[in-house]
């Protein structure tokens, strides 16, 4: 087996993470992927590029984000609970780290237009933001079902000057939005960069997005050492849609003894319920039927509504360096409220999955007194209306045990 410290570095030849990854794209996209690979390697090794990115993330994005120790909730759970506060980034999630990096890269490649897919709209809003900042055109593809569910984010993207296209094909959700973004890119790659939202897609995307999110794990590691008197956390836990906040966080801890845990939505648990397949340019784990038709994921959190997972996670799971678990909608809603009530932080529903797992396992597979780092990947403003409507549909019992 590969030594742990070699894991989460460069993928092997042809973009492989063990059996997973690769570049399964139409011939028309091969040259665009190759150009991107060359440009990224050049930029990533260029101190001038790195300095510009650092400066943008600091002064525009608000980095570094703090690590906050949840004293009240930690006491309640019998553990030390540390939150990496990615919710405090500009636009409210870790997605900004990725899009600022990709927009800068696009600029270096001479591209004038960004296309992106989005599910809940967080990555779409982040991309629209970066496009406005860089003076680029922006087209965001969003499943028609999600456009209806996430009206406010659609309006935000338009305010930022982006065009939003409702995707009517297939199941009209995130996976179809990715297909549509790829279709756009096939025809426009000469002038357009596809700003993918997670550690997925054809090589080199899973690698690029992980490197752009690595800052989350690197910051968190040194911040944890301050809080834990030089020690590392016992457990590092993140939610996983495609897996970008998890990949960035894990990259900072993969060479420590920390237990790495990725939490998927129960209705989109590609690691548990999926099988190996090749979709969206990569070999990974996917929910699919016996014939290889891709199934729809279903979750209360649109950001985790993806029937697959990034290929590096499939690899980390296979070699046993990380474990992948899932949380149900009900557990997630309870965790959402718990963090709001005990710490005054309203989390996005996505990282509420990670918290739901911690709440379930504290005192069980997480021994009492353990130090747990959880990446709070986004803030919950976008989800408040949804949680409100869920609560309205299932009103709490009154003092006599009746539904009011």
């Amino acid at each position: 087996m590969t030594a742990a410290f070699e894991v989460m570095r460069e993928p092997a030849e042809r973009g492989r993470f063990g059996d997973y990854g690769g570049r399964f794209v139409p011939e028309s996209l091969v040259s665009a992927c190759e150009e991107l690979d060359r440009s990224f390697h050049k930029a990533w090794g260029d101190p001038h590029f790195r300095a510009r990115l650092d400066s943008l993330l600091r002064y525009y994005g608000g980095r570094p984000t703090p690590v906050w120790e949840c004293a009240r909730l930690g006491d309640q759970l019998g553990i030390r609970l540390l939150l990496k506060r990615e919710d405090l980034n500009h636009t409210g999630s870790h997605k900004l780290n990725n899009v600022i990096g990709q927009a800068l890269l696009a600029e270096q490649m001479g591209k004038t237009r960004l296309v992106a897919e989005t599910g809940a709209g967080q990555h779409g809003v982040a991309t629209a933001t970066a496009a406005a900042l860089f003076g680029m055109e922006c087209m965001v593809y969003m499943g028609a079902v999600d456009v209806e569910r996430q009206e406010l984010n659609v309006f935000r993207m338009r305010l930022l000057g982006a065009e939003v296209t409702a995707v009517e094909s297939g199941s009209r959700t995130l996976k179809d939005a990715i297909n549509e973004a790829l279709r756009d890119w096939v025809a426009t790659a000469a002038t357009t960069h596809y700003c993918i939202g997670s550690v997925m897609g054809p090589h080199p995307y899973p690698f690029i997005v992980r490197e752009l999110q690595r800052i989350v794990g690197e910051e968190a590691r040194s911040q944890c050492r301050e809080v834990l008197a030089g020690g590392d956390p016992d457990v590092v836990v993140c939610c996983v849609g495609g897996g970008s906040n998890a990949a960035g966080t894990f990259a900072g801890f993969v060479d420590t003894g920390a237990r790495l845990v990725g939490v998927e939505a129960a209705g989109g648990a590609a690691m548990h319920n999926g099988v190996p397949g090749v979709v969206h340019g990569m070999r990974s784990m996917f929910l699919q039927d016996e014939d290889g038709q891709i199934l729809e994921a279903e979750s209360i959190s649109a950001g985790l509504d993806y029937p697959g997972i990034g290929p590096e996670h499939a690899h980390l799971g296979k070699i046993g360096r990380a474990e992948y678990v899932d949380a149900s909608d009900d557990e997630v809603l309870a965790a959402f409220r718990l963090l709001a009530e005990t710490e005054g932080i309203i989390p996005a529903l996505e990282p509420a999955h990670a918290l739901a797992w911690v709440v379930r396992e504290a005192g069980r597979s997480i021994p009492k007194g353990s130090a747990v780092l959880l990446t709070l990947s986004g803030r919950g403003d976008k989800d408040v209306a949804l949680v409100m409507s869920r609560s309205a549909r299932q009103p709490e019992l009154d003092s006599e045990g009746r539904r009011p």
Partner: protein
Amino acid sequence: MSRTELERSLRRQRDAGRKLLVPYVTGGLGPDWLLAAEAAAAAGADALEIGLPFSDPMIDGPVIQRASVAALASGATPAGILSAVSSVDLGIPVAVMTYYNIIARAGHKRMANLLAEAGVAGAIVPDLPVDEAEPWLAAAAAAGIETVLLAAPTTTDARLKEIVTRTRGFLYAVGLMGVTGERAELASTAADLAARCKEVTDVPVLVGVGISTPAQAAQVCAVADGVVVGSAVVHRLLDGEGPEGVSRLVGEFRTALDS
């Protein structure tokens, strides 16, 4: 029917001075897709592409997307389509066109054998570029299935050399940078790419994607050995024109290519 070797058959026609016509029909689309395939064969096609529909047809435009959704919604499966194909004698070679996940899910060897047993001669897998193709190419070759590789306008000379040595059946020259679908004009990239391909290979070079009218087909065949016509055919089926509509359209392409 007994399998007709795709490449041998296409070469024979081409060398006799005929321009090659390969229509595409989405398998499982409506009740009469197989009749439509038979009609296309009878109207002058030299080979047929039968689509095994996939839930996420990433390189297909709206027409074939709609056809794929409709076929899957009515219960189309690879096994069902192949069984239907094996039940008729089309008299010309058949290649399936599908996405790699359909093959990967079945298993390379199993899918190659299924195709061979159904009398299919070739396979076109547009999301499987030459660098990733080896395991499938080996399994396909072992079962006697010819895998058609694709070249694009942005393919470098070095890659093109690799592609032409690995392709079997014919070389699929993608006429434009974009997804399948009808276009008002023939893209300038189509003839350019066909010419580049013809320079480096003797394998029949067929242009597909964006060949929508008989006139466009004739125009590109000044350079290319033939054309693949997909969306224009499927469009007729989606519009309810049935096998007669397909027969008429394929006949028009045949006439244009022969004159």
